[in-house]
């Protein structure tokens, strides 16, 4: 499978502070769901921002579709990478349809009127996520789960091949978390690539096709979840002892050792 987006030896620090990333590399291929795992402050969000070109690395580079990210314009980047931020408070009551339609800026630009093709893409994205009925509702009146779906619909309307998600499960209830992971899997099977940061190793085992473990600013492991989400790596990332169990159906589950947890 072709590499859509790659990070090559990224170094980054905020101002004169401690380096957040020191030589992180990874690659995202079509159809993959890459999960980025690491403790608080391990540089997950920074790495995602670098991949999106929102901040510039001190050293190293991001390669988008075979070319350095810095050589693309913002709009060209947006045609290839979409961003689903952590859902947050929004002061203005945009209708869902209008919010999703902002995804068309990368295609139509800032000034031209949206054409039929744009409206079809917006409708298709809302339908795909099952939120067509919410089209005329103000985004501000929706629940956390519905908002997350709107933001993903906007990313789909953008028609980009890579979708970057910052902790998409945050703020969702247990059911919606797993429904979201299943949805992402389906969307990836249609040929898109996802890269998402997460705090849940279980989500990675159950919902990702590859896991990238970030520790002290570098990638310490990169591979299929069952090979990487091991008690040894969990201990290294979070300083927490866990046991890993194979369930009768073949899936894997982690169980923290509660006795050991509070001695750390």
């Amino acid at each position, binding site marked *: 499978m072709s590499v859509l987006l790659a990070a090559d030896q990224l170094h980054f620090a905020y101002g004169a502070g401690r380096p957040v990333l020191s030589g992180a590399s990874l690659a995202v291929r079509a159809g993959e769901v890459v999960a980025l795992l690491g403790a608080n402050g391990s540089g997950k969000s920074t790495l995602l921002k670098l991949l999106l070109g929102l901040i510039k690395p001190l050293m190293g580079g991001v390669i988008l579709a075979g070319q350095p990210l810095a050589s693309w314009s913002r709009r060209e980047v*947006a045609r290839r990478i979409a961003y689903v931020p952590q859902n*947050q408070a929004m002061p203005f009551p*945009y209708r869902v349809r209008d919010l999703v339609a902002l995804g068309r800026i990368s295609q139509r630009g*800032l000034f031209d009127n949206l054409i039929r093709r744009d409206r079809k893409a917006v409708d298709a994205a809302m339908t795909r996520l099952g939120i067509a009925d*919410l089209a*005329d509702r103000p985004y501000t009146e929706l629940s956390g789960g519905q908002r997350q779906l709107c933001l993903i619909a906007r990313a789909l309307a953008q028609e980009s091949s890579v979708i970057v998600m910052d902790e998409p499960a945050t703020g969702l209830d247990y059911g919606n978390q797993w429904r979201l992971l299943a949805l992402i899997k389906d969307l990836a099977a249609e040929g898109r690539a996802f890269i998402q940061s997460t705090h849940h190793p279980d989500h990675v085992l*159950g919902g990702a096709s590859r896991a990238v473990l970030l520790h002290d600013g570098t990638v310490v492991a990169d591979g299929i979840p069952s090979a990487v989400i091991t008690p040894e790596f969990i201990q290294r990332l979070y300083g927490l002892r866990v046991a890993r169990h194979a369930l009768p159906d073949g899936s894997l589950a982690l169980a923290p050792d509660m006795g050991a947890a509070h001695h750390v």
Partner: protein
Amino acid sequence: MGDATPASLTIPVPSSRSGAGMGASVWLGGLALLLPMAMVGALTFGRYPLSLHDLSAFIQTATGFGAMAPEQFNLIHNLIWEIRLPRILAAVLIGAALASSGAAYQSVFVNPLVSPGILGVLAGASFGAALGMVAFKSWALVQVATVAGGLAAVIIGVGIGRMFGERSVVMLVLGGIFSGALFSGLLALVKFLADPYQQLPAIVYWLMGSLGQVDLAQLARYAPIMLAGVFGLAVLGRALDALAMGEDEAAALGVPVATVRAGVIIFATVISAMTVALAGMIGWIGLLAPHIARLLVGPLNRTLVPASALLGGLFLLAADMLARGVSETELPIGVVTELIGLPAFLLVLRNVRKGWAT
């Protein structure tokens, strides 16, 4: 791996509400019709009675189709061209500029509580204007100083806000308050240093806000720039919508954020500073008109900016009629908007709180 793989998310969906898009254009059209009607109404309003009938007779005579007594014609001619029309046009232009820049600032700073007044732009422009009046002889330089003061104020206000809270709504407002206080202090200093017999009264009277000092020649110089600014902000509507999602999201959507933001801030600041050069400090309209417009037409800036401009024009026109009509002596327009604006601000707060609850 996963047992839980349903085909799609099934989150219960409350019944939909429709027709918001249609409503927006109806409101916009309604406002666009209402404004010229209100302007004609305002022409007839004042101490000297002038009926619509007089007005139509005057227009017929002026275009060669009627015969009005020459004395009466001259009287009405003066009344309209020297007194009423300039202030009506000024009210509409200033209201439109303040309201559309308020709408633009609110989107660009992702903050429904900012306005030219709250960001300190009007205070900065006032200081620039006063300094210009004391230091320079040329009116052109006074105007340049006014605009420069406005730009300096917005840069300081936003800079302070960012210094203490990267994306904080409250910090930006506090930064604006800081900037406003700084320039009010500097303004007081200029007033203290000004010649108390000639410069000081001129500065005080001007900044209190008056539409009576505007003449048609001045309007002819200001209007093209201010209308271009309002138009420019409306044209940037979609970019403003993206910026209202926050900096990172806007960039990821494909918007060149730094360029667009700089453009919007310059447009909005220049036109709101120019309102100070025309008629002094006029508060509240830049905050209230966008809010009410948003309730009517929704938050999409391509309609919100023009709707705010029309509403702002209507508001200031009404406030001016009140200023002229409420007593024997005309009240300063800034005082009127301040007094009407306060209760209306409570409505805004109520509405904002509702929007932020979730």
